[in-house]
Structures are given as structure tokens and as C-alpha cells.
């Protein structure tokens, strides 16, 4: 749904730009394409990794790892699974809801969702291309540690 909105806004702005200045618009499209072309090889690698990961780690496997009573070990596992997987939100949330129903705790789900969003092991090579090794590793590491705090608070408030 949100992608339609994004398309709508993009088309309106693009038309506006076109009527104002054709040359500039052509330049904008060229720049957009160049930025895309620059990073496409890395994107493709990420997509293949995601394919392998999702093939190995289906919801059943994940819920076995972070099921009921798995405690802090389960939280750590959930954080690790969340860090290495890259699942779009519209798959992740229903999956998380399923895992909850299957008996996982809120704390584990909190760690899973938080790391899923903030930590991207698979995309680290892409991130390094833009932010360098140090900043990329630091950002992911901090986000990983922070996710345990998120998990703890969610476990306290919701669980």
C-alpha cells in the first residue's frame, strides 16, 4: 500500500520537475540511475543471501529456537536470528505473531523484531561502501546491544 503512495508522490514531483526544467529532470533521472547502478551488484548479493537464509530459517525453525521458556538464551538466539536475517516487515510481523502464538515470549519477540530492523549482518558490505568499516561495525554493534534493552523493556511492559 505504502508503495503506491510513494509512486504517487514520485510521479507528481517528477512531472512538476519536468514542466519546470526538462534538462534538470533528465539530469535527476540520470543521477538516480547512476546511484542505483553503483550499488546494484551489492543489492543482488544481498538478495541471494536473503533467499538462502529464508530457505533455511522458516517460521517453524525460528519458533523452535526462541520458543516458550527459552529465557535469556532464547533472547540471545532471537537477537542473532534477527541480526542475520533480512525479512520485509509485512512478512516479519505476521511471522512474529505466529511465533508468539506458538509460545515464544514477548521478550524474545522484542529482541527478534528490534535486531531485524536495526542490525543487518547481510547488508554490512553494502553499508561499509557508504560509511566505512568502523562506523558500520559500531552502528550494528550498538544497535545489537540496544536491542537487548528494547527486549527487556518490552518483556517488562507487555509480557
Amino acid at each position, binding site marked *: 500500500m505504502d508503495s503506491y503512495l510513494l509512486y504517487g508522490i514520485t510521479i507528481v514531483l517528477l512531472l512538476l520537475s519536468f514542466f519546470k526544467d526538462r534538462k534538470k529532470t533528465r539530469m*535527476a*533521472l540520470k543521477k538516480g*540511475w547512476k546511484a*542505483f547502478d553503483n550499488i546494484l551488484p551489492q*543489492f543482488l548479493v544481498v538478495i541471494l543471501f*536473503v533467499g538462502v537464509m529464508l530457505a533455511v530459517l522458516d517460521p517453524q525453525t525460528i519458533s523452535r529456537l526462541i520458543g516458550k521458556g527459552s529465557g535469556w538464551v532464547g533472547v540471545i538466539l532471537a537477537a542473532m536470528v534477527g541480526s542475520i536475517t533480512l525479512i520485509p*516487515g509485512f512478512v516479519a510481523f505476521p511471522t512474529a505473531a505466529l511465533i508468539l502464538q506458538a509460545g515464544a515470549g514477548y521478550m524474545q519477540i522484542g529482541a527478534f523484531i528490534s535486531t531485524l530492523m536495526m542490525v543487518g549482518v547481510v547488508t554490512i558490505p553494502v553499508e561499509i561502501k*557508504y560509511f566505512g568499516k568502523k562506523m558500520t561495525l559500531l552502528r550494528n554493534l550498538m544497535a545489537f546491544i*540496544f536491542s537487548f534493552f528494547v527486549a527487556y523493556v*518490552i518483556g517488562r511492559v507487555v509480557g
Partner: protein
Amino acid sequence: MVNMIKRYRGFLIVFACIGLLSIFNRDIGIKAISISARSFVEMLFIIPPVFVLLGLLDVWVPRESMVKYMGEGSGLKGVLLSLFIGSAAAGPLYAAFPVSAVFMKKGVSFSNVMIFIGAWSTTKIPMVFFEFESLGAPFALTRLLVDIPGIIIIALLLAKLGSREEIREIYENAEKMGSGS
């Protein structure tokens, strides 16, 4: 041609590995390829507007106004704008990196770039709605309330931990990575 192979060598290597994997475990190999194909189609659907907007931003928005609203010393205004733009985004996190390269090119401060990345990863509005539906309001609200200060703190820490030299290098690199000159 040789150049092409060189650029896509990572892709080819991983692809070959999946091929090898398929020999040992057909099911997983086929599943991996079909999921990858599906994500590829998804990417082709979601990503083009992001890059068109990035191009338009690069061409139309003058550096001075980006610096004024989101640069060093833009204060709370810059923080809020970065949070808002990141939250209004769509697409996977890796699509945020090229956008942040254009931000850096335009003089957005490093901490604001990091806040933008944080918001893109955790507070995207369409995703949050979806989270409300799937996991309930208490879960989604709690996560948001913890995450928003969290991404700001992480961003400020990252900006502190990077030396001036390192951050300058990242900005110089962004000129190349963004969309060229």
C-alpha cells in the same frame, strides 16, 4: 564484458554456491532461488521511486537549504526533520544508504544522517501501522517509545566516536557513491 563480470563477481560466486548447495539439498536450493527471485521482483517494484526521488533531491534542493535545516547546528529542527524523513520512507534499509550519500553530499550533519538511517530502520510509518495490527498496540508503542530516543542516542554516539578525519573521509566518499557529479 570483463568489467561487467568483475562488478558482478560477488553475485556470480554466491549464485554458484547456491547451485552447489542444490546438489546436496535440492529443496533448499530451489527454495532459496525462488525466494531470491521473489525478493528481486519486490525490489524492482519498491526501489525505483527511491532513486528517482534521490535524483530530484540532488538536482533541485540547494545545498544551502539542506545545511540550514539539517546541517551542523541545525539543532532540534534537524533532528526532527531527519526522524520525519526516515519515517516517511519505504523500502528496505539498504535503499537508505544511497539516499544518505546524497544527504552527506548536500551537507547534512553526520549525526542527522545517522538519525535518518535509524528512523528508516525502525520507525517507518507504514511498517508501524502493520506492527500495531500484528503484534498489538502495547508492543508497538513500547518499542517506538524506546526506539526513538535510542536511535538519537546511537546517532550522537556514532558522531562522537568518529574522528573528524574519519567523518571527512566518509563525506568525500559520499560524493562518489551518491550519484556522481
